[in-house]
């Protein structure tokens, strides 16, 4: 371009070059200033864990309780995965609690009342989630009714259907095969060494290796494209830190009952949705719609289709949560899953999602869910009354988001 104005900007070019050749200590300084400022929620999480570890005299992080924590709150994390995508797309879903109840109820009727095998119940529950998703997706995407209204209606509708399906009474217990989903473990598959399950440790090691391989691939890809990468030393330290946490966790699980099935389901789902939100075209389109609907439309994003699949996805994930929850509670209750939607929504917002859409990360939502989980679990261990628990959780939601907004504003002002 022969441009008489050509403001050749040597200063800017220099700045880019400088950021590329960041030294080890520059990178560390960067990590502690910029990264922590934009993700203060991680700090808050660590603080809460430490606080409750002290308050409960270490019970919080003993192996038995860590297992419980995963089992007890996995449904919130599963719901938060779907909810995050809904929220990034600029919607909300108030019906998931009712969908959890309905899918569990349908499964219970087939398995308990009609004596069908456990997998029929699972498939039926998934089918319920799919149908719910198709129904709500249709109204939101193709009729254009705000998701708040559609899912508010859905909340009543699916709760009503649950009562109808269950004839207003609880059904229990599931046969033990069904209960295994939420309370089963991979244990003693490959033997024990010193009272610890080898298989669990093996999976832990594999997870670390997988993470290292993926990080290395990402890093070499960036180098191939001449992108800036962090200093090798910092890269290794980060890997070691992740390895230490994962292995410590696996070590604890291995000395209790082994690796819960639920945790494997959860890990796979988190991986899948991490990829969907960060790498897939669908994920991009969700962010685009939430960020600027009209611009997305004019960029060729098929908005209706994307919105439709957002809700189908949410419906199916809600039924997965329904299966896990009904299996854990060994039956179906008409009031199951009450207020679950609020836990999932809270997890997303604590994790930094924006109420106006277009912003949010899987890692954030998961940490947000963990904050809620550790909080509830910690207070239960301390034997606090339900009233106090509710008050504390409400305040934490408020303060966590306030803290996040404060941090972002400060980061924005500095830029």
């Amino acid at each position, binding site marked *: 371009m022969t441009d008489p104005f050509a403001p050749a900007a040597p200063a800017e070019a220099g700045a880019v070059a400088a950021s590329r050749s960041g030294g080890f200590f520059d990178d560390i300084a960067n990590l502690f200033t910029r990264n922590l400022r934009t993700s203060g929620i991680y700090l808050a999480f660590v603080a809460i864990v430490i606080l409750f570890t002290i308050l409960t005299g270490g019970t919080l992080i003993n192996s038995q309780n860590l297992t419980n924590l995963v089992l007890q709150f996995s449904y919130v994390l599963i719901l938060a995965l779907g909810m995050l995508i809904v929220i990034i797309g600029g919607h909300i879903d108030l019906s998931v609690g009712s969908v959890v109840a309905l899918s569990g109820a349908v499964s219970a009727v087939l398995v308990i009342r009609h004596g069908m095998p456990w997998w029929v119940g699972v498939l039926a529950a998934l089918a319920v989630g799919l149908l719910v998703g198709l129904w709500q997706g249709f109204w939101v995407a193709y009729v254009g009714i705000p998701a708040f209204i559609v899912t508010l209606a859905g909340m009543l509708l699916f709760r009503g259907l649950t009562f109808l399906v269950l004839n207003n009474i609880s059904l229990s217990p599931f046969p033990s095969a069904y209960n295994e989903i939420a309370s089963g473990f991979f244990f003693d598959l490959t033997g024990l060494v010193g009272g610890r399950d080898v298989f669990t440790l093996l999976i832990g090691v594999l997870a670390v290796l997988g993470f290292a391989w993926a990080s290395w691939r990402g890093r070499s890809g960036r180098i191939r*494209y001449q992108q800036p990468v962090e200093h090798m030393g910092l890269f290794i330290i980060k890997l070691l830190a992740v390895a230490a946490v994962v292995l410590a966790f696996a070590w604890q699980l291995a000395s209790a009952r082994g690796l819960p099935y639920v945790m494997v389901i959860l890990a796979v789902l988190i991986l899948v949705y991490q*990829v969907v939100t960060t790498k897939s*075209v*669908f994920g991009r389109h969700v*962010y*685009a719609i939430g960020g600027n609907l009209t611009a997305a439309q*004019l960029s060729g994003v*098929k908005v209706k289709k994307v919105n439709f699949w957002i809700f189908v996805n949410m419906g199916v994930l809600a039924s997965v949560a329904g299966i896990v929850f009904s299996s854990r509670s060994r039956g179906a209750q008409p009031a199951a899953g009450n207020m679950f939607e609020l836990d999932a929504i809270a997890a997303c917002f604590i994790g930094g999602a924006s109420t106006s859409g277009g912003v949010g990360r899987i890692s954030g939502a998961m940490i947000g869910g963990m904050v809620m989980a550790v909080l509830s679990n910690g207070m239960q261990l301390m034997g606090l009354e339900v009233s106090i628990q509710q008050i504390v959780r409400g305040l934490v939601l408020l303060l966590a988001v306030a803290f996040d907004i404060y941090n972002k504003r400060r980061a924005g002002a500095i830029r």
Partner: protein
Amino acid sequence: MSGNILEMQDITKNFPGVKVLQEVNLTVKEGEIHAICGENGAGKSTLMKVLSGVYPHGTYEGNILFRGEEVAFGSIKDSEAKGIVIIHQELALIPDLSVAENIFLGNEVSRRGLIDWNQANHRARELMARVGLSELPVTPVGQLGVGKQQLIEIAKALSKDVSLLILDEPTAALNDQDSEHLLGLLRGLRDEGITCIIISHKLGEIVEIADTTTVIRDGYVVEAIDMHGPDATQDRIIRDMVGRELDQRYPPRESHIGEEVFRVEDWCVSHPTQPRVLVDHASFDVRAGEVVGIAGLMGAGRTELAMSVFGRSYGRDISGRVYLHGREIDTRTVKACIDQGISYVSEDRKHYGLNLIQDIKTNISAAGLDKVSRHSFVNANEEIAVAERFRQAMNIRTPSVMQTVGNLSGGNQQKVVLSKWLHTAPEVLILDEPTRGIDVGAKYEIYTIINQLAAEGKAVVVISSELPELLGICDRIFTLAYGRITGQLPVAEATQERLMELMTIEKTSTDAPAVADKETPND
């Protein structure tokens, strides 16, 4: 004209790492119209934010003297209490509220906490009369055009007993008639003793109306020009703004026009909610390597025409045919248009063009995402590489493509939008007001890019309300009036007067639009 109403002395304002204003001095005389010129990012808006208290006292260095006494504004409320009112480029009106409600918003006519509607509407009508509006005060603001909305903003300022009125780009969104009316109104206000500061990129306008012009470049005041002096010309202002002589406003180009690429025939569009025909049997065509202009006044149906062609993104009851290389094509979805090599760069980049909360690379790849992805998964590195290539080719001024688009200046945002569409490798580019609200330097760069695209053999359609711009960059110009194509002129035969004549042909029962020399082969 008595003394100085405002003196800003040695104002220095820093953002971390950047000096936005450096010892700026601004002196505004009582009862004058004072223009402030400068490229985007020169510091004009920052200066006005310092003045109006958006950046409170203490966050900047220097003094502000208002009517001779030193003032220290902590917020906009403080400056408004002194009679300093700022009207931003993006109007702060609520479309669903009535004119009267908007005028007195935050300042309601009330007694004991209850609003006196009769009094409010009565006073609103008086204020509206002062700015030349005859609508009912109960009309919802959303039903009025941009021009009238701008006037309501001024009426709102008048309701606050304004003595220093600051207007940021008041005519950027207005057509010539509305601009003319607005400028006339400002003259009237000056005669009533209200001092105005006007920020504008339209230099013709400034030469016409301003008494003094202060030019800012890179946070410095270059000079304050007495506009009644002998050499107060546009060229002098431009020279001050860009720091060098600007011999040409439009880059030179040679046209090499080929075969017809794109043709729209008999296009009709109705308003999405009202029974009103906005585009009426419009036809136009563009050839390879050609830049075709579409000239029309506000409301002529320019954007409606373009957006309805592009994936039926606007309106209802759309009919007509679109041809690409002589073959009729399906343009019913945006995706289909993009896939067939048609791009539309919208006039409103903030609302229709960009995802402001995302970074540059994500915006650039948004329309051509399949080009950087395989099996529905995005290759993040490839995406960055593409964005980096456009950053350099388009000269987007940013340290990194990871920068959030909302932080860029208007000109750079426009380059990001253009990059997004060029990345889809279009054959036909429809550019709707490609230089609205961006500075002279960036405009020149955009024109250069347009030339380059034409030189590559692409077919370019430019929609613009600035006639000199169309005359400067097009090969052929169509005129649109009341939804109908009223004429077509090769640029050699076109003048502003001739175009304006064609743009104002009213709808008559007799058909057959005036077509001047159809199919005149250019050069």
